[in-house]
């Protein structure tokens, strides 16, 4: 007999690589994205007047000419909205009020009958600025000499785990004080000290941001957008505009790539604010690709100092790290990246003595936000190179060094938390094996050199301690199942695993399950945000609970109807069966209409509707001075990547020939989709390693288009990426699962950097490792002649 909780039907949908539930509509072109929705002739178009200066006071805004332009329906400025907005720190206005803080800061918005008229109106808006000196370097920004960008920092509403320092540009200072670093240095046989400057990068979803807002006569707001976070948007926009959350409805169809930039609130609030002034008419705002580069959340720049030491046996003894995050003009989201980097600042290593200072610093750069990895790719980029250097300094093989030091089950982490079960060592061993670690392959041509590199990673979901999920499982007349969730499908496959989990927990075939789309805050159950690689785990727990709830209702009904014990019943393949009476009944009809009792004695049951929710309750606060506490995070996903590269000595071009990715996902609910994440993440990591940086000159972006912001194309990727799934179960994950989406790109930069070193013996430093950078480094080192 099966247990009452774990439904086992064959074939079991968990661990089976079922086809994506959204694939068919996406290949025939019928899948709806936010810009595909039709709003009819009443639609108005919005354009935004943006600052061309990185830092200035607004002296005067004259919108009269714009207002007078025929076809213009509304012009909005910061005058109209005094409310702050922001996720962890409410430090921005929807439209700038007194000053602008980056190139692209929204100053005014227009709604007009056509996009062209809106554009013309924007050009007619006159803004008089008083330019102010800017901050373009986070380390300088943190210094007392820097001009103050947010004099009101002390007044902003802030989450209780963020520590701003009013009177400075530091919007969060996270500290780790574990052990005694100063005493430890003396015991070190080798110490490595390095500085890295990691550039800003853009998320570059292929779908640019788009939002359409409509406010009805009663002031109820409806927003259709490309959104990873319909509920967070509902909440933050409502708060900023002084509305009830229940009066803001966010509808979010498929997202054409997010990677973090469609989390929290960014341009959506602009559309709503403009729509407030033209009640009854939908207002659409879509960003051009250029605006996307200028104004969408960026991955923050980072200036990182690492100091680490080990004893002669290669045991890590101490780390002292200082991170200056280039948070940009507003750090409402970035402050938590600073914190995440702080509590993970040892990297995936067991280090007895750690001192970390992680600063989030206001600058006059684009606004930092969450990007795939949430600070971890930036931090690991330097950290994992230092680990390599330290290993070599004590004449140890970098893989061996990592084997000794990497985090293992039961270790005490940098925050004092105890490490849960983890398969990091296995990831390391298998990645090294797969790349042929220790074997040097001959180059493909005489003017080329080959090398191999490896890097480890860890990352925890970074979120408020109590970020929650919920789900509904409703059954239909024909026995099919509608799963409602608030977590978004952004390409990672969340709807497919939602269907798999519901099918498994309920006991129905996978193709009976539908996921209710689009997400709609009026009808979908609550989900904090689709970020942090938390859906499989958190939303998965909610779905499983909801499906089990529905299952219980069905079994209770049938038990009553058949006068049997619920323990003797099971649901298999869409039928309720009794192990005792060997009776069976299809779910069809009974899940809506119930079951008649014998002899016309009435009915049992009724429409079956399961509900489930999940919220971690065990995450504790961390001491503000030491960063110590019993449980900093819910869990860590760990993994390793290894690469083989070839460097062209003629040009400096680095080609990644092979990649290996090994991650401990707890349990692969859909192994092929896990592999797809590992591959896609690897390539995104490769792209940031070789090509990407936002080139900012005094706050002005020099490469705001695909012409000069290059991302990896189909011809830049290795022909093969070997993916290795390690499964050490997560104790509170559905079937033991934990997330993988972000992790897949975390170790790629340092793995490639380490391989470049192996090939040419040069530490090129910070990414991107462009042909030019590598060539000039070879020139400096005398490897090639001028």
């Amino acid at each position, binding site marked *: 007999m099966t247990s009452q909780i774990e439904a086992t039907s064959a074939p079991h949908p968990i661990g089976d690589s079922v086809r994506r539930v959204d694939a068919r509509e996406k290949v025939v072109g019928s899948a709806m994205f936010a810009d595909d929705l039709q709003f009819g002739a009443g639609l108005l178009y919005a354009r935004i007047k943006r600052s061309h200066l990185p830092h200035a006071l607004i002296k005067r805004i004259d919108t009269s000419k714009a207002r007078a332009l025929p076809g213009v329906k509304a012009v909005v400025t910061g005058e109209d909205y005094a409310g702050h907005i922001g996720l962890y720190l409410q430090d921005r206005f929807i439209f700038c009020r007194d000053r602008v803080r980056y190139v692209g800061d929204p100053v005014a918005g227009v709604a007009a009958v056509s996009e062209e008229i809106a554009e013309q109106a924007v050009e007619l808006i006159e803004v008089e600025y008083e330019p102010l000196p800017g901050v373009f370097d986070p380390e300088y920004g943190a210094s007392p000499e820097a001009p103050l960008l947010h004099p009101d920092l002390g007044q902003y509403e802030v989450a209780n785990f963020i520590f701003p320092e009013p009177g400075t540009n530091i919007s969060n200072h996270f500290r780790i004080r574990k052990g005694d670093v100063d005493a430890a240095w003396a015991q070190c046989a080798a110490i490595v000290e390095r500085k890295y400057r990691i550039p800003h990068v853009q998320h570059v979803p292929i779908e640019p941001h788009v939002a359409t807002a409509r406010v009805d006569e009663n002031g109820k707001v409806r927003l259709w957008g490309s959104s990873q976070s319909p509920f967070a948007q509902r909440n933050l926009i409502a708060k900023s505009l002084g509305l009830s959350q229940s009066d803001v409805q966010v509808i979010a169809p498929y997202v054409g790539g997010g990677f973090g930039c469609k989390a929290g609130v960014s341009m959506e609030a602009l559309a709503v604010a403009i729509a407030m002034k033209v009640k009854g008419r939908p207002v659409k705002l879509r960003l*051009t690709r250029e605006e996307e580069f*200028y*104004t969408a959340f960026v991955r923050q720049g980072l200036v990182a100092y690492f100091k680490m030491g080990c004893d002669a046996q290669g045991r890590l003894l101490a780390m002292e790290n200082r991170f200056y995050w280039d948070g940009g003009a507003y750090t409402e989201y970035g402050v938590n990246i600073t914190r995440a980097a702080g509590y993970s600042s040892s990297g995936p290593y067991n280090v007895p003595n750690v001192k970390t200072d992680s600063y989030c610093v206001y600058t006059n750069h684009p606004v930092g936000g969450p990007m795939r990895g949430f600070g971890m790719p930036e931090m690991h980029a330097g950290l994992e190179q230092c680990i390599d250097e330290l290993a070599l300094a004590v004449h140890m093989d970098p893989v061996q060094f990592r084997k000794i030091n990497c985090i293992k089950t039961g270790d005490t982490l940098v925050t004092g938390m105890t490490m849960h079960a983890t398969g990091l060592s296995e990831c390391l061993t298998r990645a090294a094996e797969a790349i042929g670690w220790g074997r040097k392959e001959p180059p493909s041509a005489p003017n080329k050199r080959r090398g191999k590199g490896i890097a480890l990673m860890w990352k925890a979901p970074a979120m408020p301690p109590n970020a929650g999920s919920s789900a509904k499982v409703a059954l239909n007349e024909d026995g099919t199942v509608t799963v409602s969730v608030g977590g978004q499908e952004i390409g990672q496959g969340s709807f497919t695993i939602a269907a798999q989990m519901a099918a498994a927990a309920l006991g129905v075939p996978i193709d009976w399950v539908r996921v209710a789309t689009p997400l709609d805050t009026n009808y979908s159950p609550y989900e904090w945000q689709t970020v942090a690689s938390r859906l499989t785990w958190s939303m998965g727990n909610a779905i499983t609970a909801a499906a089990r709830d529905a299952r219980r209702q069905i079994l209770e009904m049938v038990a009553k109807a058949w006068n049997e014990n619920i323990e003797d019943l099971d649901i298999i393949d869409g039928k309720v069966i009794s192990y005792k009476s060997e009776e069976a009944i299809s779910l069809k009809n009974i899940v809506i209409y119930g079951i008649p009792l014998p002899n016309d004695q009435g009915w049992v049951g009724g429409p079956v509707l399961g509900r489930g929710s999940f919220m971690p309750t065990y995450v504790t606060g961390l001491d503000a001075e030491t960063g110590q506490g019993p449980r900093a995070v819910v869990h860590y996903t760990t993994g390793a990547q290894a690469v083989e590269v070839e460097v062209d000595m003629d040009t400096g071009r680095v080609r990644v020939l092979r990649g290996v990715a090994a991650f401990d996902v707890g349990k692969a609910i859909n192994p092929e989709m896990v592999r797809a994440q590992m591959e896609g993440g690897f390539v995104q990591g490769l792209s940031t390693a070789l090509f990407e940086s936002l080139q900012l000159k005094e706050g002005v972006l020099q490469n705001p288009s695909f012409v000069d912001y290059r991302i990896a194309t189909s*011809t*830049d990727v290795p022909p093969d990426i070997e993916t290795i799934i390690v499964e050490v179960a997560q104790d509170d994950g559905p079937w033991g699962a934990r997330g993988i989406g972000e992790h897949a790109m975390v170790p790629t930069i340092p793995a490639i950097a380490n391989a470049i070193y192996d090939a040419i013996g040069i530490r090129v430093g910070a990414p991107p490792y462009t*042909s*030019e950078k590598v*060539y000039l480094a070879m020139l400096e080192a005398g490897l090639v002649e001028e």
Partner: protein
Amino acid sequence: MSINAHPELPEFDYVRPATLMEASRFLAEHAGEARPLLGGTDIFVRMRDGFYHDKYLVDVKHLDSTDELSYDPQRGLKLGAGVNMNRVMASPMVQAHYALLAEACRSVASYQLRTRATIVGNICNASPAGDTIGACLVLGGVLNVHGVGGYRQEPLATFFRGPGKTVLQPGDIVTSIEFPPAPAGAAGVYIKLGRNTWSDLSIVGVTVYGYADAGRASGYRFQAALASVAPTPLLVPALEEHLASHPINAEAFRQAARLAQAACSPIDDVRGSARYRKAMVRTLTEKALQMTWKKLGN
């Protein structure tokens, strides 16, 4: 691209004249506010970016023989202005006699862009980065130009005046480009160094073309053209002279590459620094010469 790039194309009128003369006259009458349109792949980008403000785009793709691609062993190759790059690449005549041209086209953007992009458009756009221009220069391209005064010819070698600037006057329409028959056994190489493997604009582009030529002391004629390292696409006569008068060997190629390096005057921009470009001109010219040498059967 600016932050104020238009979301869509700004307003203009699309004009489709019936004859070349009508087109030339229209363009001349609307000097400064009309321009010829081929594939539009340069024009549309620049209009969206607010760089071009033309009131009229005059489609010249279908006029007279602009659609023609023809080869004659005596007269050589003629490419109508409207012939797109994919067609050039796919032509067996081009592959057989002007493989360098096909190679240069292949380096441009993507397949779908090349369904529209033309060689003549690439030339008239006069960007120093134009990928097909080097090949057209070393292959001895001559443009057929139709102006208000009728037809004339413009050799490519004297066509460029500066970035985006050419000898063309209002009313001038390039109708085709012609190439003389290729010398027997001639071979060429285009090395494009972009940031990506394919599809990027060039940081540096090096075209080398060579063939056996008994009239020169070395027995060979070599030419080189450089992209993205000067205000216009750049021919390097010093290289040609050096390799005409010195015995062909590795040292001669090395020296010739130094001459190419000396001839260029690159700038720093988002795609690369002047220093890197200079270095790449040397290493890639040397490499291109060696590759051409190999193709010549040595």
